[in-house]
């Protein structure tokens, strides 16, 4: 589904990704861990198509197509979803209206008719129940005055609405208390099937107790320096990142 080959990217003059290789197949859950500043968020933004980052070398292949030249919205239309670490406040646009616009623009790009209002309401009801979101919440302005936990839950609600092929969850666990963490993880797990994939980007192992990865990768200094199974996450939790840095710098 996603194949990243020798990816180099920079912002302004600073090289941040320095040769990433990663393959994600349908049905898989990958975790990308690493110390602060290792390039985790950059990697997720580059996959989602943030324009400030310049890809200087390598390829991002999604469903067999090089997506490097595609705009962020075109990538979204192909089924890539990024859950933001810091969701942006959009005053004056309600959660519901934002989702209507996002879904209908995606459908338009896919050559489909707009979703009938009745179906839209049903979908909203179904997905808001999945994330245990109060209906009143949906008429509020997007992310405006939301708590950290509400913002993250809302991100996963949007993911549930859009049903992406590939969901990248960037530090979704930060700012969540344990109950909210469980609700969010439960939502992600229920949406998971053999045709889609999840990439969880996290600093801590905590979320991975709930969303269990098939593969864990350690990012350091713009490269994946170690890959393994879910036990690698436990090892990192116990030992921290220093040994990784030492190994990488050796």
């Amino acid at each position: 589904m996603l194949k990243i080959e020798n990816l180099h990217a920079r912002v302004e003059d600073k090289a941040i990704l320095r040769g990433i290789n990663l393959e994600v197949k349908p049905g898989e859950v990958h975790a990308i861990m690493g110390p602060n500043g290792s390039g985790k968020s950059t990697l997720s933004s580059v996959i989602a198509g943030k324009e400030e980052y310049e890809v200087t070398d390598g390829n991002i292949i999604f469903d067999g197509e090089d997506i490097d030249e595609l705009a962020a919205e075109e990538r979204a239309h192909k089924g890539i979803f990024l859950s933001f670490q810091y969701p942006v406040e959009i005053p004056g646009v309600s959660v519901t209206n934002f989702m209507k616009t996002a879904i209908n623009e995606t459908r338009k790009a896919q050559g489909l008719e707009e979703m009938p209002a009745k179906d839209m309401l049903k979908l909203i009801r179904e997905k808001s129940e999945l994330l245990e979101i109060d209906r009143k919440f949906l008429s509020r302005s997007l992310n405006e005055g939301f708590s950290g936990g509400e913002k993250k839950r809302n991100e996963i609600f949007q993911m549930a609405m859009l049903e992406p092929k590939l969901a990248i969850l960037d530090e979704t666990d930060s700012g969540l208390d344990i109950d909210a963490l469980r609700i969010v993880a439960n939502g992600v797990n229920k949406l998971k099937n053999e045709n889609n994939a999840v990439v969880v980007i996290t600093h801590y192992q905590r979320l991975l107790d709930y969303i269990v990865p098939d593969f864990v990768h350690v990012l350091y200094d713009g490269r994946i320096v170690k890959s393994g199974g879910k036990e690698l996450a436990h090892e990192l939790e116990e030992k921290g990142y220093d040994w990784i840095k030492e190994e990488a710098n050796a």
Partner: protein
Amino acid sequence: MDLKDKLVSSFLAFENRVDNDAYVHDVRTDAFKIFEEKGFPTKKDEAWKYTSLNSVLKQDYSLFPKQEDALEYRDVKKYFIHDIDSYKIVFIDGKYSSHLSQTTHDGMDVCLMSAALSKPKYQLVIQNYFNKVATTDSLTSLNTAFSSEGAFIHIPKNKIVEKPIQIVHFSTGNEAATMLQPRNLIVVDENSHVQIIERHQSLTENPVLTNSVTEIFANKRAIVDYYKIQNDNHNASLIDNTFINQKRESHASVHTFSFGGKLTRNNLNFFQNGERIDSTLKGVTIIGDKQHVDHNTLVHHIEPNCESHQDYKGIFDDNATGVFNGKVIVEKEAQKTNAFQANNNILISDKATINTKPQLEIFADDVKCSHGCTIGQLDESAMFYMRSRGIPEKEAKGLLMYAFSNNVLSSVKIPEIKQRITKLIANKLGVNIGFEV
């Protein structure tokens, strides 16, 4: 002959032609002298520093356009808020169109200024209110000197006017260039409530200059909501002078939506003559090309325990220029005043300009006054966020700009106006907002 000379030389003939009440005659004559002395404002005047009238004054305007009452409602329907029942006072090239209007004398007067100025039964109202709140600046004086037609609205006490009143001025381009000077007088007595929508619309590309004066009196506990829709074509310029005199516990609001026109200057003045008054001034400006919109506001807090809320948003593209000059005066007696002012702007193009200037003169010591102005570009992180959810760049921009102006729309009380404005904003921004408001 330049425009001032033309106006000066035609004044006597005009005065002789219209019906004259002695009182009105004196008011006009005095006003004429002021204009004759002051002339048109120039950029040397502090209040006109960023707005030059040169390009609009050089046209050879016809001051008294010939009338041609040939408009059919179906052809101009789109300029009305037509999906609600309303009173209508409609003018074509400055002359009243009974055909397009729907006026009333049933328990209140929704009719014509020409009638009010000439008929004895209105004499008392005219003497009490006409030109009583309008100031003596040169453009207002010019309008006063030539005032003969416009809307006259008098709502007696304890009356809630259910239907909004639409005042629409059409210009047909009958003349190569037309100057219009409508004069409106609106008196709302104790405990009464009225909603008014005003629009100026040119139907051809021929240049039009409108110098309009509206006097509004919101008496004790009255509620007046006024909406100005400024979406005229590129050769039409508007100088709107609006004066609102509020008595105690009255609420008055003016929403100004400026999307069109060549040059638009809004001189909006609120005078609070009583306690516990609430004044609201809001505006959305979205312009491009070489359009120019200037909001020049004044809120004069004279007595204690009053509030004013000002919120103006501007979006400027291409070579458009905007001005916001917001003056708030809080007199020494006006303790416990709450005065808020905000002016936020987005410049889409590198060549667009906004000059924004808050001006606070506070002589009382126990007041809450705030002001803030911002000038920025569209938030890049918000753009990426929306695009990552599948919303294309153009729609994302539109949605962000819609969101930006939404604060101002939230206080619009008539849903049909809100919908219409939302549509105008969407059209102006070239996007389909994709949902109903």
